[in-house]
């Protein structure tokens, strides 16, 4: 009696484990695809920051995008001689000026940054450049906030005007449209949520779907996972031109052959004393 009652429960638990593993695999693949696709939007984002630098006559401009799986804002592109140090920089979404603009959705400009030595130092440690003034606007539309656009140091003025803040907002809008048009925003959570909802139909419990999504993605964002550096490198490779790709392919070919020859020699030497 007890056995027959507990068997279905055990089966249900086993199914839950398998279903969760399958969902986790889907989540992981979706995240890999998202990171690989970032490249297609980056070209447009780069043109937005380049245009911002020219129009504002600014020292630098950059865009940070929100990565839901890791809950971090990551600077993806930058323009201007002083801007490059920021690419790759990661910021918590509730810290600092960029985090505030992301979390509040409110555009801000600050001047006299150098007058505050703590702010300047922390910024310089991360980017090798201390700006005088910054304008930061959210990349936002009716579907949510995707990131932040920053413009640093207008050459003609010491500070940014209200008009500049609004103009930066227009640039941010362009970047938002570009990201939405690409597949970058289709993060793993959004993808899983929509798949689960469409499978379950109208009867789907919102909390149930959320619980499944969270369970599936629990480990996807692990920054120590060695998969992510590999994915980043492959994504960078995809952005290379055909000539560069050919060169890299030839280089890899040589390296692989060298490495297998080296292994053979080492194996030979190892065998020798015993032989």
């Amino acid at each position, binding site marked *: 009696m007890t056995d027959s009652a507990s068997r279905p429960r055990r089966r249900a638990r086993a199914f839950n484990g398998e279903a969760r593993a399958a969902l986790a695999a889907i989540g992981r693949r979706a995240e890999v695809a998202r990171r690989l696709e970032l490249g297609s939007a980056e070209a447009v984002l780069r043109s937005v920051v380049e245009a911002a630098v020219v129009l504002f006559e600014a020292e630098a401009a950059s865009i940070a995008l929100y990565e839901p799986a890791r809950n971090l804002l990551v600077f993806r592109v930058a323009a201007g001689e002083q801007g490059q140090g920021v690419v790759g920089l990661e910021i918590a979404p509730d810290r600092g000026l960029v985090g505030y603009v992301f979390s*509040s959705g409110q555009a*801000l400009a600050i*001047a006299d940054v150098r007058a505050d030595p703590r702010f300047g130092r922390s910024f310089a440690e991360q980017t090798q450049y201390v700006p005088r003034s910054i304008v930061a606007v959210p990349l936002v539309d009716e579907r949510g906030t995707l990131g932040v656009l920053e413009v640093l140091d207008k050459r003609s003025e010491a500070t*940014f005007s209200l008009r500049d803040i609004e103009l930066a907002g227009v640039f941010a809008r362009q970047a938002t449209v570009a990201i939405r048009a690409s597949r970058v925003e289709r993060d793993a959570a959004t993808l899983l949520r929509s798949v689960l909802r469409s499978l379950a139909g109208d009867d789907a419990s919102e909390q149930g779907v959320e619980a499944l999504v969270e369970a599936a993605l629990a480990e996807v964002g692990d920054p120590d996972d060695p998969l992510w550096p590999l994915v980043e490198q492959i994504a960078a490779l995809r952005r290379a031109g055909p000539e560069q790709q050919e060169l890299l392919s030839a280089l890899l070919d040589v390296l692989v052959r060298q490495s297998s020859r080296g292994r053979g020699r080492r194996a030979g030497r190892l065998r020798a004393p015993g032989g």
Partner: protein
Amino acid sequence: MTDQLLPAWSEPFVGARRGALRHLPPFGALDRAWATGGSDGSGVTVAIIDSGVERDHPAVGGKLVRSVKVELAADPDDDPVVLDDPDGLDVVGHGTACAGIIHSISPGADLVSVRVLGPDNRGKGIVFAAGLDWAIALGAGVMNLSLSSKSDALFGTFHDLADRAYFSRALLVCAANNVPGNSYPSLFASVVSVAAHDLADPSAWYYNPRPPVEFGAHGLDVDVAWRDGGRMVASGNSFAAPHIGG
């Protein structure tokens, strides 16, 4: 041409267009004495729903009487939790900037900080709504909101909160959002929505008869308090709102 492209809520308050607002009856005689009548804000509690307020910052004048932070509950089915934050911490500096402006205009007002910067994208609208809910229940008379939510799913929640505040005789002062599209609660009729003008005068206020942004206030190159006892020169509608809130 460019003017038409920009979503410029500040536009009516800037440059030559300001002249049109100056002579609108009955606000031509609006000045500091009319607005405050010698009051210094004593007896009024102002809630600053923002990044926190630094308790010991000189600009706050020791008027921070309470500080809380709102966080998502561990179980996603549960409502966010409101926790006492006795240290009086500001994780950015922005909330302290707003508190400093309010204190400079209404030095007698008690200040309450409600820290609502959400830990993630999905949770932040819920955290913001929970913070607003808490401040209304506390009985704050004025609430300074320099942030808003774009989430359609939270339209009803924020509408209910704005109604509750209105019927509790609490005034929600919201920074206008320059990004087109939804922005709750700053676009609701029962709240006061504020954008920046480009005058260097903290006591210059403008009324705009065309909704949704009702007031223009000092918001360009404002000398504001910032975290760790510092100061910063900053611009944005979020610094105009506390000039009206104060």
